[in-house]
């Protein structure tokens, strides 16, 4: 690469005055709205009286999400392009990811904002800084304080998620990764009950997240070393991006492949693929359940968006090299998720392993850089995400004495009799996870499996079908426990949630069924949206 080095030296010696890059504010508006609202949320925290904060924050958050969604809709006809001096790709895929993240976040925030199930208290610690079990904590609880900082934190995280799948250069992508992750580490540690578990989860998540970020950054550095650019793609021949460099040298040096491996590891960590999955069960269990629902769905969608962007845009030229590795990761992820879920007795942990298993299905769709594979992935993500948010919302309702969630499976015995509606909703979500026809995920799996088959990876489909058979066992076991065993004498109570959570549950269940019965509209949308700015 002496020519590239020479070019950059030449650019450095050029003493042309610095011109501000042209920023297309309109195309970035979904992200700007969310991040702007998050900043306003910080101001609310600083200036609004404590009593008014909850309403202000929730209103602001929902409004920002709705406005950003409207901005995505308004942008849907934008021609495929890169904005902000090549840092952000605005194409149909970006918009599809952003719309999905916003819609799912909206539903998740409805559940996060719930405070009726516990008599005016929400799922978060009264005062995050107080030591668990201390006098200070008791006073904060007695005073009825709420940690309303959660809402701006969640908004910042969503802002990062919106940027993550849109980032067209690795540095922007890294910034987005950190913006989405850091607030999540914090809110994970804010559970009201079992605070030590929650704080432990947050610390683990933070340490491992920082560890994987380092890998990502190192991978990005190696790729820069190889290509002389951090941009994934740049059609300007004087300033080629990674995609152009890869295309120019079909068999690049070890630098390229080491870079791909390290970068890929950072991203696979976020989607919870094996062998980088180990944080998922611990964090999912410890985090406040509404946050678990939010991050398991939205983070995963954003991270898959980034993976798609890196693999399909930046590294499409070396697909032959990374494809076998992705296949191995997919198989490993499905096997680990499916087998480990078998012995879980805790509903949240079971859902965590099920999330690993489903990540394996989605990774299957990455083995091809073709249009159909991307379209199937785009269909799968929103249907899966919405069912996940719904299922965690049900978990928030089942509570033991003292308001602690009853997450042990044995406590769910006979729920079908004592609380038929939550049990039925949970059954719908579980049947969807199990891939029963006429649920959305059946169609999603069908599309992904078919795409993998068309891409010439029958071995993946065989593993996936076997894993589905194993998975049916642990999904159906929950249904069996709920409907075919007798209620426990001192069984959990079922909280009567607010209208917001009821809406969230109803919408999730409705979408799950409707997308199974009449998926054509979403299939067409995901087909049309599978267009990347290369």
């Amino acid at each position, binding site marked *: 690469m002496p020519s590239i080095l020479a070019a950059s030296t030449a650019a450095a010696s050029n003493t042309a005055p610095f011109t501000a890059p042209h920023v297309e504010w309109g195309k970035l508006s979904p992200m700007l709205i969310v991040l702007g609202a998050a900043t306003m949320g910080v101001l609310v925290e600083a200036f609004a009286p404590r009593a008014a904060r909850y309403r202000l924050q929730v209103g602001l958050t929902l409004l920002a999400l709705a406005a950003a969604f409207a901005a995505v809709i308004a942008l849907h006809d934008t021609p495929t392009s890169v904005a902000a001096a090549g840092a952000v790709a605005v194409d149909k895929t970006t918009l599809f990811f952003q719309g999905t993240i916003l819609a799912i976040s909206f539903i998740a925030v409805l559940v996060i904002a719930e405070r009726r199930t516990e008599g005016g208290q929400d799922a978060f610690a009264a005062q995050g800084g107080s030591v668990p079990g201390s006098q200070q904590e008791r006073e904060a609880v007695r005073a009825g304080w709420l940690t309303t900082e959660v809402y701006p934190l969640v908004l910042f995280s969503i802002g990062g998620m919106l940027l993550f799948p849109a980032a067209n250069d690795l540095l922007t992508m890294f910034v987005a990764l950190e913006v989405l992750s850091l607030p999540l580490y914090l809110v994970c540690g804010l559970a009201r009950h079992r605070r030590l578990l929650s704080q432990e989860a947050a*610390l*683990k998540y933070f*340490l*491992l997240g920082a*560890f*994987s970020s380092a*890998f990502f950054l190192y991978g990005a550095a190696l790729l820069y070393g190889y290509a002389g650019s951090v941009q994934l793609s740049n059609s300007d021949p004087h300033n080629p991006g990674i995609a152009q460099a890869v295309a120019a040298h079909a*068999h690049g040096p*070890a630098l390229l*492949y*080491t870079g*791909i*491996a*390290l970068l*890929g*590891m950072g991203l696979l*960590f976020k989607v919870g693929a*094996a*062998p*980088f999955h*180990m*944080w998922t*069960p*611990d964090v999912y269990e410890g985090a406040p359940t509404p946050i678990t629902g939010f991050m398991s769905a939205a983070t995963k969608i954003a991270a898959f968006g980034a993976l798609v962007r890196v693999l399909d845009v930046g590294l499409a030229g070396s697909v*032959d*090299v*990374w494809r*076998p*590795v992705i296949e*191995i*990761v997919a198989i490993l992820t499905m096997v*680990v998720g499916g*087998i*480990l879920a*078998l*012995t879980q007795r805790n509903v949240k942990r079971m859902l965590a392993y099920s999330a690993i298993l489903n990540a394996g299905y989605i990774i299957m769709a990455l083995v091809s850089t073709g249009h*159909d594979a991307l379209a199937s992935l785009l269909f799968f993500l929103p249907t899966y995400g919405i069912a996940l948010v719904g299922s965690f919302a049900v978990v928030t309702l089942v509570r033991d004495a003292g308001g602690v969630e009853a997450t042990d499976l044995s406590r769910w015995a006979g729920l079908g009799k004592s609380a038929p509606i939550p049990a039925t909703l949970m059954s719908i979500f579980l049947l969807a996870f199990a891939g029963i026809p006429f649920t959305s995920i059946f*169609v999603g799996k*069908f*599309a992904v499996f*078919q795409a993998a088959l068309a891409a010439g990876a029958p071995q993946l489909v065989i593993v996936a079908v076997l894993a589905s058979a*194993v998975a049916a066992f642990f999904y159906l076991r929950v249904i069996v426990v709920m409907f075919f065993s007798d209620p426990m004498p001192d069984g959990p109570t079922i909280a009567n949630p607010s209208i917001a959570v009821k809406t969230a549950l109803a919408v999730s269940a409705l979408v799950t069924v409707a997308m199974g*019965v*009449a*998926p*054509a509209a979403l*299939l*067409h949308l995901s087909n049309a949206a599978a267009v990347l700015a290369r």
Partner: protein
Amino acid sequence: MPPSTYAPVAATGVFTLTAWVVALPMIGAAILLLGGKRTNAWGHLLGCLAALGSFALGAVLFFSLLGKPGDARSYDQHVYTWIPVPGFSADAGFHLDQLSMTFVLLITGVGSLIHIYSVGYMAHDDNRRKFFAYLNLFLAAMLVLVLANNYLLLYAGWEGVGLASYLLIGFWQHKPSAAVAAKKAFIVNRVGDVGLSIAVMLMYTTFGGFAFTDVFNKAPGADRDTILGIGLMLLLGACAKSAQFPLQSWLLDAMEGPTPVSALIHAATMVTAGVYLIVRSHVIFDISPNARLLVTIVGAITLMMGAIIGCAKDDIKKALAGSTMSQIGYMVLGAGLGPIGYVFAIMHLVTHGFFKAGLFLGAGSVMHGMNDDVDMRHYGALRKYMPVTYVTFGLGYLAIIGCPPFSGFWSKDKIIEAAFAQGGTSGWVLGCTALLGALITAFYMTRVMLMTFFGEKRWVEDEQGHEAHPHESPKSMTIPMILLAVGSVFAGGLFSIGSSFANWLEPVTGRAEGHSPINTTVLSVITLVAVALGVGYAWRLYGTRTRPVPALAPAGSPLTRAARRDLYGDAFNEAAFMRTGQWLTRLLVYFDLRGVDGVVNGVAAGLGGSSSRFRRLQNGFVRSYALSMFGGAALLIAALLLVKA
């Protein structure tokens, strides 16, 4: 004349209402099932409205169809595409033509009358709302079955009517006999459902699609053996649904359901679905004479079996059920004859829908007045007490035995004629069977008539000691009976004048004239003589005052005893399938315990064990998680460098 090629045009204008014919009862069922107790007060009315609305739409479609020329009465309405992926299409779409139109009118027309009848019949039942929900569900499923424009959707409707039938036979599930009967119907139908599903899968692999357009237009060019296989599998499906030999055993037990159910599902509509399936798939059967031959044999055997069973039953509903089997045997026989029989099979199906539904409703009315007693030996002399029931039942009776000019005469006569017209030895055998069947039909129906409405009172007290007080049923029950009786009287004649029904259906099924070895007029006379013989013999046994009907059934001849036990249908099933099944199970259990279980448990234990072992890796320590991530990253690098090299 061969049928016009199958090329439906997209539905426009009024024909886009087709989907609503199905949607109305479906919505009704959904509201009643999901609404729960809140809909108890008005549930039955909503059920009736949904059925009537569907019928009204059907009528609108019918008259619109009449306004089109004969070969332009074929419409397809695409409703939605389930999973639009390349190489596979599972569409929901409806096909309206003369054949499906006929069924729509029959199903919604008779269905509406039976809904209205049920308002009175089920008035004292706590679960009346649920009953109407199931009836609506049945209507919706049956309409999906006959209106589907592809075999996959047809299969969905097929399963739907099976479900509704199961729910309704077992409606009084507190009676063990009803619960068992429902289960039996379901299990026997599974056998047929497997047949139909195999046929559908064969169609997909052979023709690359489920749609009628694919199947009908590509069938003539397909491999003959495959076509025969598809035909036989379709026949297996039809046998179970239409209670044809050898899958007939469930229908008699199905009479445990409420009588309106017996009338609607197990006489007029659902059990005729097999005939619909064969006639709809006529393209398959047209090119496979062997499959057709088997269809006629099945029809002929069932025709005789049903008639013989009908002679021996003292339970009025079971006698009628035997008769249903027998009459459907006629239809299947007609359908098996090919283009010379299709239209008459359907014509008999429609007229039978009228008179058999009427007869069942009449039987229900009698039971209503007799404390739900079904034993005809406890009836007698009811004509004075239930005049409307007597007259309507009597008109249905005249129709079914084929007395001119009532409906059954026209349609049954045509099937007998077509059987002879088949020609050759098979023509003679089938024709004579059909003729003998007509004689026996006249005998057992006269027996039912005489034992119920004539002779001396043989009423008994019921278990609680209530005297029987036979009385005429309320208006909501008698009016449907009267309307059905009108159909029983006039439908056949209307259909036959100027061959109007045959001309109507001809563009769909095609029609051919056979060459009967006997002059048709002579044949009609012979048939009438046979009928008269049957009536006369029954009169001699049950009608004369000198020989009153014994209140307890006499021992009877071996044939009677066999017929009382459904010609050993259950005994045969038990010996042939249940016992061998049990032996097979025992054998399999043996192997299962020794061999398979070892493997299965091994796999399960292996999975569980590896799960526990993997779990140990999940030890909660960040340091070991980080180590495994590090190892994973190292592996990724190694793998990538390896692949590259």
